[in-house]
């Protein structure tokens, strides 16, 4: 029996169950937790099976129709990382949450897990769109869960921009269908090479990548993202920051690696240069904007804009090493941002501090939290031997191999840009600044209203964050085993390199 469809069916069915239990909040909460735990177990088993199978990949066609016509689901090494990450992150945030959440919230969270897992396993560009929309709808609603005017505005903006992005992607899919007559990923990959110079295909690439770029929040399509992250409740923003953009970037990886294949980028150097420029611009702009923020959550949000620029650049380099670095950085960034957003929420819950200035002297008020924020910040900078370093190393090595010296410079320089905003925070936390700290006093939770200042739904969360920090360091040391796991999925890069 192939259990692959269960990866999507279980959380979506769970969402329905949570809604059905609507009146009894406690039962709904318990059921949601149980389903998430089950999903983690299921994803782990399936991931192990996929990685262990021939070719490192398993697939399943839903409903008995054969491949090009039926809806195909597939799980390879990269998808395996994503399907395990998604429910684990949501479960971790749940355990760190102290606020009581209504059954509808549980249903949305499970729907989100279903949508994200669906994107991970979709082997058909239209199915991918469907799951992107499911993810989006759940995410829009969750952003609004904070209540208040600002959250509503941010959620509405997110909805409009997100829908535009999804629509652009769908338009691109339509072009591809017109050009090739198929929606299946493997089928597209077989038929597209003959049509690389067709304007329809080039337009299809532009529309799908721009659409996904909106979802990933690459500069200059990022404007929705900081507002959405900053105004969402802390538990929601942790999940969004760790998963939603990550999975959109994963979809970008699928489109580049499997649908168009890197050979397309070699055949259309103008498109590749343009896309690389946008990605590198995202690194620079995101970092500069992050340095300028006064609120910690917004700073971290802009940091994501920069880090995803790096990931996108890695996929566009047409180099296997760089693509592997991109996958590692994608995973590493998700883990680090998960930890940071949970930690930031926990700090807000404990001390009410939400701005960089309010973090002054945090090391004395919440030493464990400050240390964890510092450690995760250094991971983001890429201090070895953490996962942040491993990702950067492989992307940079790939860029050197590809002879893309400009990319090398931006990647290495981005270390210093990341340092600029991380050091700003660390300096505040550890520099007691006696007189200034005295003047500020102990910041209390602001009472001037506004969703951004709302009390955090998170609890102390130090165990959860410590666990994440541990994973961030362990992943950096275990990068060799990740390499073996995802290598089969990166074959198209190796093939394109040979043809270079």
């Amino acid at each position, binding site marked *: 029996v192939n259990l692959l469809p269960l990866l999507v069916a279980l959380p979506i069915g769970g969402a329905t169950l949570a809604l059905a239990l609507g009146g009894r909040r406690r039962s709904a909460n318990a059921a949601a937790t149980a389903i998430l735990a089950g999903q983690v177990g299921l994803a782990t088993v399936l991931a192990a099976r996929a990685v262990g199978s021939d070719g490192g990949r398993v697939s399943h066609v839903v409903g008995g129709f054969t491949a090009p016509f039926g809806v195909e689901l597939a799980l390879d090494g990269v998808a395996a990382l994503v399907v395990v990450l998604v429910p684990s992150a949501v479960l971790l945030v749940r355990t760190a949450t102290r606020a009581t959440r209504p059954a509808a919230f549980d249903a949305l969270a499970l729907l989100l897990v279903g949508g994200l897992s669906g994107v991970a396993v979709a082997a058909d560009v239209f199915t991918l769109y469907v799951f992107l929309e499911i993810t989006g709808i759940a995410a829009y609603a969750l952003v609004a869960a904070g209540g208040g005017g600002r959250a509503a505005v941010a959620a509405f903006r997110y909805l409009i921009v997100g829908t535009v992005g999804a629509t652009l992607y769908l338009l691109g899919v339509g072009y591809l269908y017109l050009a090739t007559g198929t929606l299946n990923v493997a089928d597209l990959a077989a038929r597209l090479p003959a049509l690389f110079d067709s304007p329809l295909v080039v337009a299809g690439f532009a529309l799908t990548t721009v659409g996904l770029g909106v979802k990933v929040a690459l500069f200059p399509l990022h404007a929705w993202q900081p507002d959405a992250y900053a105004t969402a409740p802390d538990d929601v923003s942790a999940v969004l920051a760790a998963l939603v953009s990550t999975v959109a970037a994963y979809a970008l990886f699928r489109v580049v690696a499997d649908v168009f294949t890197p050979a397309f980028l070699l055949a259309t150097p103008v498109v590749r240069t343009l896309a690389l420029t946008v990605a590198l611009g995202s690194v620079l702009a995101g970092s500069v904007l992050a340095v300028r923020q006064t609120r910690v959550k917004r700073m971290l949000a802009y940091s994501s804009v920069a880090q995803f620029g790096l990931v996108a650049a890695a996929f566009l380099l047409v180099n296997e090493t760089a693509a592997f670095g991109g996958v590692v950085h994608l995973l590493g960034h998700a883990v680090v941002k998960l930890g940071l957003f949970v930690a930031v929420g926990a700090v807000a819950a404990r001390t009410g501090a939400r701005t960089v200035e309010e973090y002054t002297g945090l090391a004395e008020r919440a030493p464990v939290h400050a240390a964890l924020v510092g450690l995760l910040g250094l991971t983001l900078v890429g201090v070895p031997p953490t996962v942040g370093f491993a990702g950067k*190393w492989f992307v940079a*090595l790939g860029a050197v191999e590809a002879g893309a010296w400009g990319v090398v410079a931006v990647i290495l320089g981005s*270390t*210093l840009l990341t340092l600029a905003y991380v*050091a700003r925070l660390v*300096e505040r936390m550890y520099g007691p600044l006696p007189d200034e700290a005295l003047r500020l006093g102990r910041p209390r939770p602001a009472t001037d209203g506004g969703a951004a200042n709302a009390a955090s739904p998170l609890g102390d969360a130090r165990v959860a964050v410590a666990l994440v920090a541990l994973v961030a360091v362990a992943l950096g*040391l275990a990068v060799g085993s990740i390499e073996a796991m995802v290598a089969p999925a990166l074959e198209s890069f190796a093939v394109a390199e040979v043809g270079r």
Partner: protein
Amino acid sequence: VSEFALAPVVAITLPTVAVAAIYLSRSRPRVRELWTLLAAAGALAAVGSMLPGLLAGDTYAVRAGTLVSGVPFAFRVDPLGGLFALLATGLWLVTSVYSVGYTRGLGLANQSRYFAAFAASVAATLGVAFAANLLTLFVFYELLTVATYPLVTHAGTDRARRAGRRYLAYTFAGGVAVLAGTLLLNWAAGTTTFASGGVDGLASASPAVARVVFVLLVAGFGVKAALMPLHAWLPDAMVAPTPVSGLLHAVAVVKSGLFGVARVVLDVFGPVRVSDLGLDIPLAVAATATIVAASVIALGQDELKRRLAYSTVSQLAYVVLGLALLHPAAMLGALFHVAAHGFMKLTLFLCAGAVHVETHTKRVSEMAGVGRRMPLTMGAFAVAAAGMAGLPLLAGFASKWYLLVGASASGGWLFVAALLLSGVLNVAYFWPVVYTAFFEQPVDSDPKPLVEGPLGGTAGDARPAEVTLADGGVPARPIGRETSWLLLGPILVAAGGAVALGLAPDAVFLRLAEAALPTDASAIRGVMP
């Protein structure tokens, strides 16, 4: 050669464990101090246990896994690493005792963080010393930056924060250059593992790429080695507590930069290839400029620690110059100077710290009469300063002798002249300190507002029973006459070390330095005198 050597693992593990132990016993100062001392003694013993083997030509290798594909996370202790590790652990033990006296004497805040970060810094330094390849070295090089940051900003003042920001910006920028160089080396040569006389794979690399790799690596390591114009972080970092300035900013941190340069010249490129690529002369010129310029700047510094910092900048450039000359005698002198400068400069810093604890004096112009009040301390200062200037029978003489022999043998008269001029400048910037301390009276100079009693502080029989210093600090409890033995003891040991190195340079350090040079005669230009 053994596959898994215990000693290097123990040496790195002890200070690492000490970090946790210090944190756990943070509410019990004496236990916390005990951990530091035990870890320091243990690490020194572990390094010491490798010495006979190292001198006999053995190396100690450990492979701890894979860092990234193709690059192992590996250690290999050779004579060069042993020299650096012995220096760092030996002086850590001395500084630990001193730290206890210093922190008590000044009533320093956040002592747990201080001792924990100190132990972490030493662990990272040993990692740098033992690393078997450039990437492993880089890992610890970056961790060293992270571990020392809290020490630089320890005071928590605006000035400390600014210094810390500058420190991070400079050293991380240097780290990026090292990473870029490592990346290119791995790509061009296919390996980053050190090999005596140079990495073979570089032979097939294009000279342009090899030059870029060299420049990136030397510039990156040059930041911590404070090679001008990359030195500006070092004088600012003097805002740190004095033992930090002493051990980290005269021994561990700056010498990890020098050590990186030495590895690049000796074990990545090899002297012959450095010379073939025409990289030796530019590096030597940069080092010479640093030697002279930093000495001149030191003349004008009134704050004692800043004067010492510029002296460090100048003295570190001796080592770079010696390595860049590529003559065996010059390289020998350079490597020996790593140890000699460590002992002498630590002595100077520890003296400056003791004077600060006792009299709250930080400026040279306020030091009149300090020599009479603290004769042993300032005596040690004078001895170490004389060693810096290269007076015979002191550590500095041996290293400068070899440097001069190497410079003249390789025909670089400009370098000989610069070395001699620097010796004169050394006297010029150290003599005023000694003169003011011993031969001026407080009445002759500006009053020292923080000093109490006729001879100042708590000296002599006139010392008051209860003293509270003007800034609210708690005065040290004097066990000896001039200051606490916890301060005086380490000063005398470090100064004794500087003298011993001058009297018998070939006891340990010179032999290690000799063993660290490539044995193959063809790998070096010129011959030993």
